Structures are given as structure tokens and as C-alpha cells.
């Protein structure tokens, strides 16, 4: 009975591709740990994480400046993107008539699809000279934050919109029935009910911002200094890896992998927070 044979064969093949995928995922973790952990041992966890001097030539590897750089641009981009993104999400979920939504939604989708180098290029050509007018040499935390804002907006908009839409209609009807205006309903009923989803969207946006590489290299200047004002240059963790990996050897290379581990832990923590917050949101809504 060949068809039973085929059936069993297919089952094995399909199971094997499942296993292969899992092995690949595992291999990624193993390889990065294997190459990065020696650096922690060599340099010392404390010196590596809190050292402020990164001079591979002199065997000094401290990534605190880069951690600060990443954190600062991420916060900067969120300060710009969160108010805009939530406004846009409310617009899409509640306020806009059908026609406006049909224009706006593809725009948001397209924002996701634009390659990060294109954002970087536009930032380099338009933003950097504009920032230079204000002060400094233009390659700055400010320019980087604005570029990142455009890149995290779609994440914040689409997940916030979904969570506002997921609020049971009875909430809205109840609010309107007791005489609240549309705006009062949005602010005092819908947004609080959707707050865990909106929170998750911000955390996921944060993850995207921390992980962004190419656009950051292009506009942030990549100098290893603590930025004191938004007009100062900085360097991010991702930029540090990308700029130096091609010529690094020995401890230097290992230190870059260790930078990758730090980045990975950041992202893992952010994603877990987002997942928990989303789950709690749906749980709260199904309870009522």
C-alpha cells in the first residue's frame, strides 16, 4: 500500500523540518553565547557593562557609553512617537470615517515596509543638515530619535488600534448612554480599557528601536561619547557591532558578541513584558 508508505514518509519529513527549524533557533543562541561568554570572563562582567572606555587597541572594553546611547535614542524616539501613534490609533479605531481609514491604513503598512536604509538616507540628507543649523555637526541623538520615531510609529499604531478595537462595544454604548461625549468616552472608557494593549505596543516599539542598526549608523555619528545634549553624537549597541565586527579578532570579536548578548537580553525582557501585558489585557476583557 504505497499511500500508507507515503503518508508515513510525509509525516517524517514534516517532523524533520519542524526539528530542523528548532535546531536552527537553538544554534543561534548557542553560537552567540559560545563566542560572547569568553569576553565576560576575560574582561569581567562589571568592567564590561559599566566600563566607560572602549578602546579595542588598548584592550579596554566597556560598553556603558553604548548602552546609554541606545537607551537615550530609544527614549527620545518614544517621546516623539507615543503621542503621535496613540492619536493615530484612536483616529483609525474610533474617529475616522471609512474613506479616511482606507487611505491611512495602507500608509501605515507602507511605513513598515520601507527599508531602514531609506529612512537613514532621508535622515542623512534632510535631517542632519537641519540639525546642524541648530548646532553641533548634525550627526546627533536628535536626528536619530526623529528617524527612529518614523520607524516605531507603525508598531505602536497597529497594536494600539487592535487593542482599542478589542474593547467590548458594550463599554462604549454604556458610556454614550449615560450622556458622555465621544471624546469623554474615548478618554475615560476606551483608553483605560485598552491600556495594557497600548502599553504592549509601546514596549514592542521600544524593542524595535533598540534593535535598529543601519539607520542609526547613518545619522547618529557613531562617536563613543556620552551625549550631553540632544545635539551631541552617540553610538548604539547595534551600531557598535555592525561598525566593528568585520575587522575584529580575538577578545575584541568576543566583546562584540557579548554586546550582542546584552542586546539579546534587552529584547527578550522587552518582548516578555509585552506578551504578559497583552495576555493580561485579553484576560481582563474576557472576564467582563
Amino acid at each position: 500500500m504505497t499511500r500508507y508508505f507515503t503518508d508515513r514518509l510525509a509525516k517524517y519529513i514534516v517532523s524533520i523540518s519542524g526539528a530542523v527549524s528548532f535546531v536552527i533557533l537553538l544554534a543561534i543562541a548557542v553560537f552567540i553565547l559560545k563566542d560572547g561568554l569568553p569576553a565576560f570572563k576575560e574582561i569581567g562582567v562589571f568592567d564590561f557593562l559599566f566600563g566607560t572606555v572602549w578602546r579595542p587597541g588598548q584592550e579596554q572594553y566597556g560598553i556603558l557609553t553604548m548602552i546609554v546611547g541606545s537607551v537615550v535614542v530609544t527614549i527620545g524616539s518614544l517621546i516623539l512617537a507615543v503621542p503621535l501613534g496613540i492619536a493615530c490609533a484612536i483616529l483609525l479605531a474610533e474617529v475616522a470615517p471609512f474613506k479616511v481609514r482606507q487611505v491611512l491604513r495602507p500608509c501605515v503598512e507602507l511605513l513598515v515596509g520601507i527599508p531602514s536604509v531609506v529612512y537613514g538616507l532621508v535622515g542623512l540628507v534632510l535631517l542632519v543638515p537641519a540639525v546642524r543649523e541648530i548646532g553641533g555637526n548634525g550627526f546627533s541623538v536628535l536626528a536619530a530619535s526623529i528617524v527612529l520615531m518614523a520607524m516605531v510609529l507603525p508598531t505602536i499604531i497597529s497594536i494600539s488600534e487592535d487593542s482599542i478595537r478589542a474593547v467590548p462595544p458594550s463599554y462604549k454604548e454604556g458610556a454614550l448612554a449615560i450622556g458622555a461625549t465621544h471624546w469623554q468616552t474615548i478618554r475615560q472608557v476606551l483608553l483605560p480599557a485598552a491600556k495594557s494593549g497600548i502599553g504592549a505596543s509601546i514596549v514592542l516599539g521600544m524593542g524595535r528601536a533598540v534593535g535598529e542598526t543601519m539607520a542609526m549608523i547613518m545619522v547618529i555619528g557613531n562617536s563613543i561619547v556620552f551625549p550631553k545634549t540632544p545635539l551631541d553624537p552617540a553610538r548604539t549597541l547595534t551600531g557598535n557591532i555592525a561598525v566593528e565586527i568585520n575587522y575584529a579578532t580575538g577578545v575584541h570579536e568576543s566583546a562584540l558578541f557579548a554586546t550582542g548578548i546584552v542586546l539579546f537580553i534587552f529584547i527578550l525582557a522587552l518582548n516578555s513584558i509585552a506578551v504578559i501585558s497583552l495576555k493580561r489585557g485579553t484576560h481582563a476583557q474576557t472576564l467582563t
Partner: protein
Amino acid sequence: MVYIWGGGFITVLILLVVIGYVLVQGIPSITLDFLLTPPGGGLSGEGGISTVIVSTFYLVVVTIVILVPIGLGAAIYLAEYAPDNRLTRLIRYGVETLAGVPSIIFGLFGFALFVTALHFNFSILSGALTLVCLLLPTMIRTSEEAIKSVPYAHREGALALGVTRWQMVSRVLLPTALPGIVTAIILCIGRAIEETACLYVTLGGSAAMPSSLLSGGRTLSLHVFYLAMETRAFDKAMATGAVLIITIIAINTLTNWLSYRFQKRMRGTA
């Protein structure tokens, strides 16, 4: 309310500035000549993008050829075969986690395994294998969704006729889910074209015509990066960027059209 409309307005404005600026600056320089001549000697910024288009195409084809069998197989396994035990939950968790990991970390991995340990050096092969790892979560998740969205009655109907499970999967589920699976593949092609960071550290960036799997290359997005950062040839960078954006818009439109048809089909047969 002004605040809310303002948010939407600014979002559209950002899109218009980014896309509009690149297209307006870039499209005038896109000529047949630009598309068909190789980039002139290394870093000069002269010439066109012919070899870059070939490299991009080459890389995408190799990536998809490796990615689709593994990803689709894993998706079928997770959707139809996998028992609900600790191992499958672990696989699912792994897939979900990796979907959020930044590109540069995949780049590090590709650099350590393919470029260094396996001695593929900076090459199309290294780049493609790295991309496979990066895209695997997307491919698995999207095609698993497509397979799962086939109405349950289809499965029961087929099994009631006495076919084996594989016959049910291959003759009923896969053909019905095909547009969804094609959408998943196109989505991955789009992301492969957009991707830069993980290729920056695995592909090498040679502007020469790739002759084999082991020759280096640069994709359109990498070319934009090199032109802007090393050559400072902004006009060429804009033109390449415009080609890139037009490609992405075409891919987006195709995906939307396909998934619209897929949803219609699912509703029609449910």
C-alpha cells in the same frame, strides 16, 4: 479632536516626506542605462546598478529555495501533526521569540557560523543562509496561519472519504491554503529585499557581478548604504532608493491583493 486628527496627519506627512523625497530625487536618474550598467570602479559612485540587481535577485532566489521547504514543512508539522506537548510548545515559543530579535544579532550568528566556522566567507551563500534564519519565524508563522484558516469541514470531509492524513494535507489543505502560503513567501521576499544589517556583516559588499554561490555581493539596500556612507554619492543613492521603494510598493500591493483573494475564497467555501 484636533490632537487626534493631527496624529493621523503627521503620520501621513512622514510617509509622504520619506517616500516622496526619495522618489522625486531618484526617479529622474532612473534610466535604462542606470539599470543596465555595472557600478563604476569600486567607490566612485559612477555607473549604474546592474550587478546589484543581479546580486539581489540571486540572493533572494537562493534564500527562498532553502527557506520555503523548511518553513512550510515546519508550518505543516505545527498546524497538522504536532501533538500539544512540551516540545511543540517550546518550538512555538522559540519561533515567537526569534521573530522579535534584531537583524544584527542574526548577522552576528551568520558571521560566526557561516562566514567564519564553515568558511563560506563573505558570500551570497552566507548571506542567504543568514536570511533563512532571520525569515524562518515569519515563514512558519504566516503559513501556519494560512493552513489553520482552512475550514475544519474540509479536513473532516476528506478524512471521511478514507484518505490518509498526508493525502488530506497535500490534496485538500495545501491547495486551499495556497494563496495564503504564496502571500507568506512574497512577504519573505519583501523582507529579504529590505534587510540590511544582517547582510552588512555576511555578504561582503562586493560590487562585482556574482559568479557563484561563494562570491560576495551587495543588495539594493546595501548599495544605498555604501553609496550614502562611503561614496557620498547621494544622487545615485536616491535613485537606488527609489528603485527599492518602487519594488517594495509593488510587493505590498501584490500581497494585499493576494490576501484579499484568499480571505474571499475562505469565506466563499466556509
